[in-house]
């Protein structure tokens, strides 16, 4: 359950980053801003997939999978949140 919340929070943070990157891309059209968008979109897909698999696999895979996934999601969320924090200024 906490897995889902963390992945959902990552999705929200990534949408915030995408908002910044798309806005700048519209005025700039540079390879750097295009790359930033690809970066954020792929991680967005990754987190949505993580949420889907968590629900889909919860039938038969128990805490053995959920606990490592929790650690990964937590580290990911802290990373994205830091990036959003410094980019939002």
């Amino acid at each position: 359950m906490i897995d889902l919340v963390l992945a959902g929070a990552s999705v929200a943070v990534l949408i915030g980053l995408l908002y910044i990157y798309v806005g700048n891309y519209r005025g700039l059209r540079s390879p750097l801003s295009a790359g930033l968008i690809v970066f954020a979109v792929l991680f967005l897909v990754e987190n949505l997939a993580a949420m889907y698999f968590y629900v889909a696999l919860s039938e038969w895979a128990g805490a053995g999978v959920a606990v490592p996934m929790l650690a990964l999601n937590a580290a990911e969320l802290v990373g994205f949140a830091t990036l959003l924090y410094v980019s939002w200024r």
Partner: protein
Amino acid sequence: MAAKSLTIEIVILERSRMGSSMDVPEPRLPQDGWGRRFMDKRLWYLIAGTRGGINRARILWTLHDRPYNANDLATRLALDYKTIRHHLDVLRENDCVMTLGNESYGTLYSLSPRLQVHFEDFLEIWRRIEPRLGEK
């Protein structure tokens, strides 16, 4: 008579003060190449990687003409005064702009010597932005 000469003296003092604070300092050329690499990366970070990057570029382009205060910039760029102040603070932290004279309401901002030296780096980015400005 004494009062008149005092007035003249004040006017002269005032003019010389304004004149000196309006001058943009001579750009100092860095001895080695480190300044260029860092300014280039910093501009990309400030313009492509953070919120409101395009407006930051518009501010730098406007200040390239001559120094302005935050209020004039807000009017010229049709942006909120507080937004302008925020961008100017960030740009100043990153040594892209500097204030002329002491800090007060009408403080003039100009490009920093370092950005003036590496202005070509900014122009490379600006060439991408300028043709798209009318589209929004």
